[in-house]
């Protein structure tokens, strides 16, 4: 992250861009990352609902599972911002989210 000086800041120290905290890459805090098994996922939206960041993205990406079931949406993890708390994996009703260590694998 580039260090800002007073010359870069707007007069009065105001913030002119809403929600610019997304430039904080909080994903570096993580020790375990959630990995979603797209074939096991039933698109119930629970991980998306309980994510504190929000780092679970609901994408309009159609997906056909191996067993032939069609879905209009896909849930993916925003690894730039996910802090690896594991609420999604803990709350998933079908255990489609696994926490994988960032160190070993």
């Amino acid at each position, binding site marked *: 992250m580039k260090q800002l000086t007073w010359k870069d800041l707007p007069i009065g120290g105001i913030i002119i861009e*809403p929600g610019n*905290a997304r430039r*904080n890459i909080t994903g570096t805090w993580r020790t375990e990352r959630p990995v979603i098994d797209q074939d096991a996922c039933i698109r119930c*939206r629970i991980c998306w609902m309980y994510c504190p960041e*929000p780092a679970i993205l*609901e994408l309009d990406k159609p997906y056909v599972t191996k067993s032939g079931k069609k879905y209009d949406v896909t849930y993916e993890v925003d690894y730039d911002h996910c802090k690896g708390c*594991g609420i999604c994996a803990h709350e998933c009703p079908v255990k489609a989210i696994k926490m994988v260590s960032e160190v070993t694998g």
Partner: protein
Amino acid sequence: MKVYFRTIKDLPVDEYYGPGQLTCAGCGPSIAVRWLLKAAGPDVIVVNATGCIEVTTTSYPYTAWSVPYLHVAFENSAAAASGVESALRVLRRKGILDTKAKVMVIAGDGGTYDIGLQSLSGMLERGHGVLYVLYDNEAYMNTGIQRSGGTPHFAWTTTSPVGSKLKGKVQRKKDIMSIVIGHHIPYAATANIAYPIDLANKVKTALDYLVEGPAFIHVLAPCPPGWRYPEEMTVEIARLATETGYFPLYEWDHGRIRFNPPSNAHFDKSRRKPIIEYLKRQGRFAHLTEEDIKEIEKEIDEYWDYLARLAKAFG
């Protein structure tokens, strides 16, 4: 409460909070604020008292908020919000500004139970159309887990330590809802981050009532470092708080009290889960003996007796 969102599929997609805020992993208040703003939509002005959410979302030169935002001190969030609301009303009356923007205060338990109680009481008494949301993580977590008026009996904090003389906090949790209802405002409700559909419906209902007067929502938001539990348990612990009867979900709507599922079945004690399920998952209650747990159980039973009497009188 009017039902705006019936199922999980009806919940709004747009985000007005985060990502990139510096809250801890598994932050309960972060889930609460995310759903407050998603339910309220873009037409809202947030007034935020000092606290965890303020410190973590506004690390200069970044902001996690995508709505107009005003940070004020611990004690005057409700007073500042009263001013914002009055200014909007005058500008609308004079035809200078054409906006339907609502004002929402977000304050923690320290900023509501203790330091900000006078400004909250003043705002409710003057009848400003402001929604005041208390996110309750049951201590001053931001400054290092000091006890507040919202800390429950027997909970460990750094200023109510556990040793040979003291066993955590000596006093009981303040009943803020009864204090607020005592001001005879149109709407007050409790909500829980484990039930976001209920929370979103209550926020929308409260914002609709603001033309009549103030509204208040008390949201329970567990804190992993302060309550001493692994961060993936946040939602499970919040859900257990309601299922064990520790934190009932109910609302005060124009002089009527109504209990929301699952708390509406909890007047019958056998329908509540044992309180030990809630306590044993948290390190702040790790020192409790059998007798202490019996005492907490007795306090919860007394609280439910009180609620049952309220429900009988105002149901």
